[in-house]
């Protein structure tokens, strides 16, 4: 049994979601190989080689792989797939984009977003916005799997000493051209790996209010900032702040929901947080049904008071 893990990275650092995928791969049993496909990505390959439990790193360095274009990456992975029983990627935007393309080419029904690997070879995966956990078993000889980032521990980033082998694939498919990216640089912890998250909803009413009320609290707590869909749709904060069924899945130590009602689509993304705190002026808001500590208050009074007292 052997597993190929597709690394998610930005050509300089190995994403922490990859460490989670490595843990899931280890649970599947057998050797774990990590594929680092990128451009100028030697540092990532070196980092992957140090991850505990990784037996081998395959490194494909080519301009075609620099931006994770699925049309280029998928044929590379298909070419390598023969040697592995499982092909695993984190359920990040990279994994979600590329893996079904690989699966279809190999005639495999992908298993998306797994949260558990059971002893009988079955997998648990959330469906219906996390309201129904399906336990599924596949009859496909090979498995293509994406792994939910909050469901397994991160593999130790140090302690391994895997060999790094250069590999190459068909390169540029010529189908799709990368034009540009707008990636926000932030001093804050990354949303999906932060231990504290302060999230704001529609009640914030503007981007300025996010800066005025949410940011200072997040600064005090060293927290990442998240948001509901309503706050993102209204343009208060960028799209990558959205927590939920169709946004980011998070499970920090502490999640503070401010002016968020708690729709099932939002809960789907944060209800595995260890402690949930909600501030909402409506005592009947559904968020209080999942909150460990709820404060019924106007956020425009409560949040500045909270920030000043911390």
């Amino acid at each position: 049994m052997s597993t190929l893990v597709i690394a998610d990275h930005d050509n300089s650092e190995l994403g922490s979601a990859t460490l989670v995928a490595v843990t899931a791969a280890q649970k599947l049993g057998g050797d774990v190989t990590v594929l680092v496909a990128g451009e100028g990505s030697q540092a990532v390959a070196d980092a992957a080689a140090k991850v505990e439990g990784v037996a081998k790193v395959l490194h494909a360095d080519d301009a075609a792989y620099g931006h994770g274009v699925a049309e280029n990456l998928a044929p590379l992975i298909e070419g390598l797939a023969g040697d592995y029983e499982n092909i695993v990627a984190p359920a990040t935007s990279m994994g979600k984009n590329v893996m079904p393309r690989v699966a279809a080419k190999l005639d495999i029904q992908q298993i998306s977003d797994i949260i558990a690997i059971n002893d009988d070879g079955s997998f648990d995966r959330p469906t219906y916005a996390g309201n129904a956990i399906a336990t599924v078993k596949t009859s496909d000889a090979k498995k293509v799997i994406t792994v939910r980032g909050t469901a397994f521990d991160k593999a130790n980033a140090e302690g391994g000493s895997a060999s790094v082998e250069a590999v190459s694939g068909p390169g540029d498919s010529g189908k799709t051209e990368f034009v540009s990216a707008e990636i926000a640089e932030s001093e804050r912890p990354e949303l999906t790996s932060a231990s504290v998250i302060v999230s704001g909803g529609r009640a914030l009413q503007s981007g300025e209010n996010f800066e005025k009320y949410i940011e200072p609290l997040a600064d005090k707590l060293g927290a990442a900032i998240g948001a509901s869909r309503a706050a993102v749709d209204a343009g208060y904060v960028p799209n990558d702040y959205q927590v939920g069924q169709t946004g980011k899945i998070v499970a920090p130590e502490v999640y503070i929901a401010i002016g968020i009602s708690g729709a099932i689509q939002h809960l789907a993304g944060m209800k595995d947080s260890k402690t949930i705190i909600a501030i909402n002026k409506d005592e009947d808001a559904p968020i209080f049904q999942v909150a460990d500590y709820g404060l019924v208050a106007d956020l425009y009074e409560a949040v500045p008071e909270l920030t000043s007292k911390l």
Partner: protein
Amino acid sequence: MKILVPVKRVIDYNVKPRIKSDQSGVDLANVKMSMNPFDEIAVEEAVRLKEAGTAEEVVVVSIGEQKAQETLRTGLAMGADRGILVVTEDMPEPLGIAKILAKITEEESPDLVILGKQAIDDDSNQVGQMLAALLGWSQGTFASKLEQDGDKLKVTREIDGGLETLALSTPAIVTTDLRLNEPRYASLPNIMKAKKKPIDEKTAADFGVDISPRLETLKVTEPPKREAGEIVPDVDTLVAKLKEMGVAA
């Protein structure tokens, strides 16, 4: 340009799903069903391209039980021109759906297929990418903006770190994210008009593709319940709790 839009009939997003007591699945009897929200966004985008004169024809297609016809009618009322209903006994898995859609795409030869990024029932997020793979086409997934740029399609994608723009050669597959547009409500006259628009009915067997399931669902269960905690009286109590948890000094 001709655009194909696959639309799925799913549980309405406002309904909280109930698990059947025998753990065989979610109880959909007498539950409000609607078009998958991401597919509404896909139909809206296609109709806007038609209204802008970029597209000539918009075809909606749904695979599922006979009642999926209602979902097609919704798409027709929003402005699609005609529908294709593929009746199946059981809902195929994403790979099976993609195989049927690949056949329909070969027959219809659209320049663009716009799908939702994810069906809100199975939450798979697979069909669009699989269809692109089977056809060997370009893919622009999780789109928040779509523009024609000469013979290319410029797609802005919502990715983990922010946004990314790709130029796709056509024909192409695009999957929608929430910010692509705000779908319209169909007006009453358009709902009436949609009743006269043609729907071509087929069965899965007509396509001669293997859609037998690969996954066996052993059980469907409720996630562990989170108990509601306590309502704290004031900010000071909250501060004390945060200190207890060690997240505040």
